[in-house]
């Protein structure tokens, strides 16, 4: 961002809750079926049909709210948001307005400044205030292509109408596009983590809108904000925000004024375009939905949901630092995804050396996984196996250097470390008796050197070590060899 300017950004995320059926009827939420196949009188908005709230959507909504640190309201009210659009069959969307499902969240994320190429430099924690998260139904979809006479007609597919959404709204707490980027990724992972949403932007089950304004550094008043839509990936969102910040600064510096409006990101042209101005903005005439009683969420229900939830990333990160002595960076990296966090814990337990397990995962396993484009869950090396490998090294069965080779082989063959070590005869000889035997043989075969050594030429110690290692084909445990040699050579 240009020197002397500050951007103010707020985000709205729509996440589809991962239910089997729609929020107010029993129709399937499956994608890709024949248009209007998954519909019924309720989601078609036929005269006389009435909504009935899907409890599963409430459960998943509660998971999402808890994962984002929101307070769930004991009673929330559904409200009608009135507007006309062909994909909105009732002429209103059932949403929530002045009494949302959950409010007042504080979410700790980690964010990093980026270099010109977009590579993260230094990660730091940051608190984002989440204003609210409410439940609502999705609209259908207008279809303008691929059907007869699209020059004269548009088509409507209502399969998506009524799928449950959680709308997550932040305070204007972001100052850079990358903070917004890191926040959205955090929310995505958190929702996936607790199973509330698939949160896949490409599939459209996570959508994002950004409010962007700029002001001179030090200024308290907000500038005129622009709403950005059609942000189909986190990266597009980041680019659109960046574009918009620069556009605003240029506009103001050249004596112009920002217009309050909604703009769309055009990812082909790499720019934003006007969608509608404020004058055309809707008056949604919200009022309480008379067809649905207030949604009451009891403490017992929240307890039940909490009990079913996996440990949250932040809590787990803190625990990893305390329990396993991991650094902030390692703990953050390992808790970025639930699969990886689970993997690490299992490996650490099998290794009985948590920090060594962490080192092996960070420096070796992740590189192998990345190279093969796999996630931790799909690793050909099971966590327990990696733990066993770490243990072999720890116990001195093989050296660290050998360990790396063994891991590569484990990755390729799927065999366990023990099998590979056995097959390749890599195991170190750590049996004191065996080593004593070899040492004795070597000493017996080198009387001249022994004499010189005992006469004070201690540099010959290295010669004996070399001979023993050679005789053991490199497998003798160096530490033991050292001990035994010291003892035997001293003897007279």
């Amino acid at each position, binding site marked *: 961002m240009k020197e002397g300017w500050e951007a103010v950004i707020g985000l709205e995320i729509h996440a589809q809750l991962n239910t089997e059926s729609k929020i107010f009827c029993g129709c399937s939420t499956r994608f890709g079926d024949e248009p209007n196949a998954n519909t019924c009188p309720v989601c078609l908005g036929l005269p006389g049909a009435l909504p*009935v709230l899907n409890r599963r959507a409430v459960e998943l909504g509660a998971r999402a709210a808890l994962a984002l640190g929101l307070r769930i309201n004991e009673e929330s009210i559904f409200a009608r948001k009135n507007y006309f659009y062909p994909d909105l069959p009732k002429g209103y969307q059932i949403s929530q307005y002045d009494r949302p499902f959950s409010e007042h969240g504080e979410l700790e994320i980690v964010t990093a400044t980026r270099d010109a190429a977009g590579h993260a430099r230094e990660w730091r924690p940051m608190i984002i205030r989440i204003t609210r998260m409410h439940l609502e139904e999705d609209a259908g979809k207008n279809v303008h292509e691929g059907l007869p006479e699209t020059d004269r007609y548009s088509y409507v597919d209502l399969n998506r109408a009524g799928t449950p959404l959680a709308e997550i709204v932040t305070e204007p707490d972001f100052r850079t596009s990358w903070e917004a980027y890191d926040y959205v990724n955090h929310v995505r992972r958190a929702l996936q983590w607790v199973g509330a949403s698939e949160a896949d932007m490409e599939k459209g089950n996570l959508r994002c809108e950004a409010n962007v304004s700029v002001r001179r550094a030090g200024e308290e008043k907000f500038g005129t904000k622009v709403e950005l839509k059609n942000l189909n990936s986190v990266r597009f969102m980041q680019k659109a925000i960046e574009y918009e910040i620069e556009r605003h600064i240029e506009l103001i510096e050249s004596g112009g004024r920002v217009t309050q409006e909604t703009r769309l990101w055009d990812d082909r042209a790499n720019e934003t375009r006007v969608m509608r101005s404020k004058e055309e903005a809707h008056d949604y005439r919200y*009022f309480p939905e008379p067809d649905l009683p207030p949604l009451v969420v009891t403490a017992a229900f929240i307890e039940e949901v909490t009990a079913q939830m996996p440990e949250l990333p932040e809590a787990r990160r803190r625990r990893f630092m305390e329990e396993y002595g991991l650094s902030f960076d390692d703990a953050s990296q390992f808790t970025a995804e639930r699969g990886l966090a689970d993997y690490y814990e299992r490996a650490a337990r099998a290794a009985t050396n948590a920090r060594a397990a962490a080192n092996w995962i960070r420096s070796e396993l992740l590189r192998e996984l990345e190279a093969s484009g796999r996630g931790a869950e799909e690793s050909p090396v099971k966590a327990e196996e990696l733990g066993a490998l770490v243990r072999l090294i720890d116990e001195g069965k093989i050296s660290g250097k050998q360990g790396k080779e063994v891991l590569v082989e484990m990755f390729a063959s799927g065999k366990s470390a023990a099998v590979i070590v056995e097959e390749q005869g890599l195991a170190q000889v750590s049996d004191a008796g065996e080593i004593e035997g070899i040492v004795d043989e070597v000493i017996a075969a080198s009387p001249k050197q022994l004499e010189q050594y005992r006469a004070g030429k201690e540099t010959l110690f290295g010669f004996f070590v070399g001979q023993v290692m050679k005789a053991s084909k490199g497998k003798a445990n160096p530490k033991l060899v050292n001990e035994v040699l010291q003892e035997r050579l001293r003897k007279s």
Partner: protein
Amino acid sequence: MNIETIKTRLAGGELDARAVAERALGAAEELNETLGAFLQIDRAGALARAGELDADRGASPARALNSVPVAVKDNICVRGLQASSGSAILRDYYPPYNATVIERLRAAGTIILGKTNCDEFAMGSSNENSAYGPVRNPWDTKRVPGGSSGGSAAAVAARIVPIALGSDTGGSVRQPASLCGIVGVKPTYGRVSRYGLAAFGSSLDQIGVFATNTTDAALALSVIAGRDPRDATTADVAVPDYVSQLTGEMQGARIGVPRELFGEGLDADVRASVLAAIETYRALGAEVVDVELPHAKYAIAVYYIIATAEASSNLARYDGVRYGCRAEESRTLREMYRRTREEGFGVEVKRRIMLGTYVLSSGYYDAYYLKAQKVRALLKQDFARAFERCDAIITPTTPTTAFLLGEKTDDPLAMYLNDVYTVTANLAGIPGISVPCGLSQTNLPIGMQLLGAHWSESTLFRFAHAYERAQPFDARPSVMAKGEA
């Protein structure tokens, strides 16, 4: 024939379901030109259904409403029959599903005879707002039957069917029942499922029943009442056997009289009849107590804010995209919306949509909608306090008897005042029943209304029945089905 008669004659073998259906169909077809009560008479469906019932003779008698023909207001969905709600915008709309009340009626053995005329989207008090022409009052065909369920009321009053379904948002069952000299019940909000009832004012709408007598009304309500998992606003409150409660017992009952509702604007004949009914109750052993409803005077104002607000949203779905009615050759989406709704809706509906849109608009919401909700809460409190002192409140159902067609069409406010006694029950969510209580000097029926606390339909039926026994209403309209008494 009332339900009891049908039952007896079926049991005695004098009639079968087919004969019952034929009689009702014949009467409906013959009188429709005079009354305009039906928008669709389902001859084929009714006969087929009667055939089924006759074929299943073994099981049929156990059904509560075996072979009883029923007329259904056109805003209630019956699969296979039209559901225009009296509007041109839903001309030729055939819903693909049954309302819950229809499922329950069918399970009880009824024969759905057809769909009845009504004010467009149930908005009106005279049935003159139907896009398909007015309904005429069987007592005097120059007069209105009341509304909005005018067709159902006329069909029952003319003895075409023993029972009919209507919907009551501000009095649309009780007011036409009163003007047509029959019984009309509006249950407690949440007592009967609204699933399948085209919504007008969702927090006020209830499906209600018309019958020629209290017993039939009680029987019909016991069939359709009860929680429905498809309607989240129905309550899980047990439905008593209403008919078994019709004991005639009034000893120790307390009847509340809100004196302020017997003042200005009330027709002298109506007042005299209702006051006489109060004396009948006293004579039956009831205690008559004065009650106050200090906020009732705001009821019409509150009602026309809340009902129109909800209607403006409920009717948004009729936008030309679905249901067939669409202004063709529109250049833009906006133009299609505007023209479709301009052409498809009638004057009263448009007036209410505009009112409702206005009171919900940003900047006006607090002053109108929110304030109306506050007064609504106060009115509920009024009733709660009143029902601490009495078991039912008695009022006239309507300020006047049936008025002439065209008499009030140019004066919406005068038309709205017809609902002055009935809207309170919808706002408070309490049940109400209208029972014939006499004739005016011009030989038009007069109705009295009994209001009760939530879920007190049993009490209302018992009180209405006791009155009916003491003062049988023997007068009959001039237009009636042949052979009916």
